[in-house]
């Protein structure tokens, strides 16, 4: 049986998402079964568009959605997006893989994506707001069942 690794991606920060996907792709390339559980801010990483008003949202949900519009921020020195812009430039210059490339790779390597339905509900998002290749929509029990069988479990 293959070894397993799980990652809870709670953050919606560019740098943390890159760290999560770097580990996920490396583990998958090392013959591990990898699951990423996207919850709360982490859902911003798998949103189709950064801003959506398509789904029925109340005022506060709408405000949250508007406030998390734009590119993913860096966790430090974001400076209203300047930091994230600089980081992307620097990574490109160093020829390091971008987040979208890493996400594409993760899909090729069969990394399983699970979206947290509770967070989706709280934030007023629907399945349609997310990228198409989400494997499962589930909650904490599904995550824990996966984590219990895994050797490596990370919260990012």
């Amino acid at each position, binding site marked *: 049986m293959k*070894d397993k690794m799980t990652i809870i991606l709670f953050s919606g920060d560019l740098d943390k998402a890159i760290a999560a996907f*770097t580990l996920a*792709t*490396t583990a998958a*390339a*090392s*013959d*591990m079964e990898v699951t990423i559980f996207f919850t709360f801010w982490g859902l911003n990483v798998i949103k189709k568009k950064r801003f959506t008003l398509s789904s029925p949202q109340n005022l506060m949900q709408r405000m949250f959605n508007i406030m998390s519009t734009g590119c993913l921020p860096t966790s430090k020195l974001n400076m209203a997006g300047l930091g994230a812009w600089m980081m992307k430039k620097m990574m490109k210059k*160093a*020829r*390091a*893989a971008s987040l979208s490339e*890493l996400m594409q*790779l993760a899909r090729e*390597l069969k990394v399983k994506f699970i979206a947290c339905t509770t967070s989706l509900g709280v934030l007023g998002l629907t399945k349609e707001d997310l990228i198409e290749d989400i494997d499962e929509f589930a909650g904490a029990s599904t995550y824990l069942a996966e984590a219990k069988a895994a050797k490596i479990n990370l919260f990012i």
Partner: protein
Amino acid sequence: MKADRTIDCTGLFCPMPIVKVKREITKMKPGEILEIIADDPGFEKDLPSWCAMSGEIFLSLKKDGPIITGYIQKK
């Protein structure tokens, strides 16, 4: 060492060299040797570690300035 295949991973950073190694080795037959040329300093440690996890056979690694050349064999 005579390799059956060679991949060039120079200019690439983690996780790309390992991902490329994985991609290439899946196309190979058991016993065949893969040569990997890389220049990410971490690759020196990462290649034997990856072999330990994946079960592929780590043969050798040599360094020539910043260039790391590794040899692994498909199990």
